């Protein structure tokens, strides 16, 4: 049993409210927000029990769990509810969920010190706090019941929202106990369950958000409807730093349904009765742009800049031994340059944000991975104090890191400031693809030394790319070290006596860059696991066996590698044109993942992924079905990115615009995906991103096995076409 001390946030909070009910109507949401008054003091007859920011139990006994993290498909509402429900002793069917309002203090993610859903951190960050929140509430409800019967709390048991006095079988529901529990002191210490007593954690409990997602009632930001609401769509300068030169306002205003043209320095919005009028109005504007200083830049210019930067040393993130002399003394030296392109996120729900700017307040409805940043952005644009800005979160139609940015909130508030009504700003898909905050272009120099027997004696990895952390989390950017840029490279598990990992910071002037599913690991794992495959080939060893011999200090890595190799039928014959590739992942997510990919390159050179086998050790599993779903999801996202994903620039403009030229995997191209889970009691690891991050290298190594061609540049389909020339 674990006994933990009370932490600061476990106090009786007067109001946890302001959140939105799932499947709410906006009118109801406004009501919910405006009635976010002191629930614990709402009168003696109707007191809700709210021992912390995550749990509210009104007298009707319907347990409301307030979700600190955003639901974007990763199953976090279900997983976090399971953590609370396990200790609170309620059944999933007794729960009602609310999105948390913006509040870093109450709902901050301990890894970032703010309310943030990203970096595959939700379960890791909340595994203990939410169990403690649940246990605290349960202890108080049990104490309230025991006091009312005048018995020892130890003789009472809580189960499915009911406290029972075991010897006499008397029982009281949580709803009945709520008012009495609310009057009690929050205990300093609570005892958490021994994992062997878990009844919910570790089970494939059903997701809590499925029903609304199969009958059309689930509410995403884009589904917000308000009385008097107008719809706007927007065109921002196609070149970063450009401005509107001229436009035909009269022609647009003449379109039926168009209400207003809103000019921003760097863009124009058309406000209308509906999206169709807004789109047509925007087209009628016939905007001419002054492209500004970036008008001539194209992808090759950017690659040239990165290549030049790669000639100078960077900030050292890891150094073991003396790589320089180890390389000098090596029997064989292997060198390679790897490149990974800009990528767009392309969430299915295009960027959107609804805003109502009133005389002295502002209200925002959107889907965000960083709700408190969304509020701060609205406060900054309007000049209103934070308390005058209300932000309502929604289900996210995909996040993937795109909704870690608040550019679309800032822009929508800038537009709404000029509109005398609530306005929903919806980006077209073209706007979404061409004004993303992209995964950066990375350029990596690799060097390794092998001894006479083919054993690696030196490894150097120089990563060239921006320092996103310096912009995004400046407090985490210390001594020039960007923990994201080197994530997945710096944790190299292979026993090599001399290792150096460096990051050369090189910022892009022409595209905004940020986090993409898998963050730094997605790019680094591609490089590291492709290059280790090169070393296996250089030493004429089997890729799995070669990795295995270098993993003496990492039994969990060996276990997933062996499991993936076995289930992936490693070494078994395949038809010609097909090959198997392996990749191993370990990073700051603390999850071990090995993947075996089976890929075909057909006669016309097209890559087809047939089968993906993943072996995953993510420590304690909260919901194995959601873990599997996340790996399936990550792999599909990873295939799209690795095989076809590429955003290119020409004369400062993004060349891709929609799904016809930003290709993503479709149903008929999807491989069979198998996920094998290792069960143990280790601390939980992240699961939303590893499947994406491990896939590029496994596919690349499989293409090598199938064709003998070693690719060092993503996307693989284009690199293969170049290699075939």
């Amino acid at each position, binding site marked *: 049993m674990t006994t933990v001390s009370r932490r600061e946030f476990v106090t009786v909070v007067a109001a946890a409210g302001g959140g939105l009910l799932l499947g709410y109507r906006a009118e109801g949401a406004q009501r919910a927000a405006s009635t976010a008054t002191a629930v614990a003091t709402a009168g003696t007859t109707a007191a809700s029990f709210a021992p912390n920011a995550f749990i509210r139990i009104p007298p009707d006994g319907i347990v409301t769990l307030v979700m600190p993290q955003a639901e974007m498909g990763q199953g976090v509402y279900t997983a976090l509810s399971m953590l609370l429900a396990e200790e609170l002793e309620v059944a999933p069917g007794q729960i009602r969920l609310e999105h948390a309002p913006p509040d870093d203090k109450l709902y901050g993610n301990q890894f970032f010190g703010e309310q943030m859903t990203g970096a595959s951190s939700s379960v890791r960050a909340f595994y203990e706090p939410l169990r403690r929140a649940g246990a605290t509430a349960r202890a108080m409800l049990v104490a309230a019941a025991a006091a009312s019967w005048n018995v020892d709390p130890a003789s009472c048991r809580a189960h499915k929202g009911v406290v029972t006095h075991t010897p006499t079988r008397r029982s009281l529901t949580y709803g009945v106990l709520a008012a009495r529990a609310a009057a009690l002191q929050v205990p300093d210490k609570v005892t958490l369950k021994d994992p062997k007593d878990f009844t919910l954690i570790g089970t494939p409990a059903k997701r809590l*958000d499925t029903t609304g*997602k199969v009958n059309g009632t689930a509410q995403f930001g884009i589904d917000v409807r308000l009385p008097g609401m107008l719809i706007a769509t927007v065109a921002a300068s196609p070149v970063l730093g450009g401005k509107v030169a001229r436009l035909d306002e009269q022609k647009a205003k003449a379109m039926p349904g168009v209400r207003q043209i809103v000019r921003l320095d760097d863009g124009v919005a058309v406000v209308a009765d509906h999206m169709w009028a807004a789109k047509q109005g925007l087209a009628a504007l016939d905007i001419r742009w002054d492209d500004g200083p970036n008008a001539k830049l194209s992808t090759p210019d950017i690659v040239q800049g990165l290549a030049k930067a790669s000639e100078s040393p960077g900030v050292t993130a890891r150094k073991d031994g003396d790589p320089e002399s180890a390389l000098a003394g090596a029997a064989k030296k292997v060198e390679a340059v790897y490149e990974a392109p800009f990528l767009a996120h392309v969430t299915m*729900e295009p960027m959107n944000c609804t805003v109502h700017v009133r005389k002295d307040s502002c209200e925002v409805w959107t889907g965000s991975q960083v709700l408190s940043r969304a509020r701060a952005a609205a406060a900054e644009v309007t000049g209103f104090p934070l308390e005058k800005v209300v932000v309502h979160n929604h289900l996210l*139609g*995909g996040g993937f890191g795109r909704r870690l940015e608040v550019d679309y909130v800032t822009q929508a508030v800038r537009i709404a400031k000029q509109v005398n009504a609530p306005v929903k700003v919806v980006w077209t898909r073209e706007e979404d693809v061409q004004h993303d905050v992209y995964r950066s272009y990375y350029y990596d120099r690799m060097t390794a030394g092998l001894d006479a027997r083919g054993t690696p004696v030196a490894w150097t990895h120089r990563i060239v790319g921006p320092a996103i952390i310096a912009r995004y989390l400046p407090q985490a950017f210390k001594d020039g070290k960007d923990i994201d840029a080197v994530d997945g490279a710096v944790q190299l598990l292979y026993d090599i006596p001399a290792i150096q990992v460096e990051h050369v910071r090189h910022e892009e002037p022409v595209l905004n860059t940020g986090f993409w599913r898998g963050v730094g690991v997605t790019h680094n794992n591609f490089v590291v696991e492709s290059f280790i495959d090169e070393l296996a080939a250089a030493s004429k060893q089997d890729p799995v066996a070669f990795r295995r011999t270098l993993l003496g200090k990492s039994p969990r890595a060996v276990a997933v590698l062996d499991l993936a190799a076995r289930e992936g039928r490693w070494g078994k014959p395949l038809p010609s044109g097909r090959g198997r590739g392996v990749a191993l992942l370990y990073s700051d997510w603390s999850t071990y993942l090995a993947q075996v990919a089976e890929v075909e390159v057909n006669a016309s050179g097209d890559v087809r992924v047939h089968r993906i086998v993943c072996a995953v050790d993510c420590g304690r599993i909260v919901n194995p079905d959601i873990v599997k779903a996340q790996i399936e999801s990550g792999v599909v996202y990873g295939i799209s990115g690795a095989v076809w994903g590429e955003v290119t620039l020409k004369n400062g403009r993004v060349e891709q615009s929609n*799904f016809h030229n930003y290709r993503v995997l479709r149903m008929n191209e999807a491989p069979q995906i198998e*996920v094998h889970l290792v069960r143990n009691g280790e601390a939980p690891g992240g699961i939303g991103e590893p499947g994406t991050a491990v896939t590029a290298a496994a596919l690349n190594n499989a293409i090598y096995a199938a064709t003998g061609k070693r690719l060092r540049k993503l996307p693989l389909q284009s690199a293969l076409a170049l290699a075939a020339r």
Partner: protein
Amino acid sequence: MDLMINGERRQIDVPSDMPVLWVLRDVLGMTGTKFGCGMALCGACTVQLDGQAIRSCVTPVSAAAGKAITTIEAIGATPVGKKVQAAWIALDVPQCGYCQSGQIMSASALLARNARPTDADIDAAMAGNICRCGTYGRVRAAIKRAANGASISGRGGR
């Protein structure tokens, strides 16, 4: 203009070239049908017109006059749609859920005309519905489950 939507006659006053998608979402407030691309490339906006799956983002409302429009809000009232939704729930198919209205509308149209679709039939019917969360394996399994009653057990995979 008179439209028949989910069995109800609706009178609307919109330009005849306005896509059905925006009539549903912005005029009638039926937000279950989603906007994804505006070019019939992603399938998020799929509805049924006389039982046929169509992309409402490129279908002018004039083309729907005199025909029956069925959307996600009412597909559960059809025997096939009910089975499809049940299979989706049984296998916990959705992740973010944004594309799922379109997936379900395409799958229901497929099963209504082909009660026992092969993998190739499923590929052909569903290739136009993009899911960025990668639920394809579960979508396939759920279609088979809906086709076979509850004979396919377990979750995920093909």
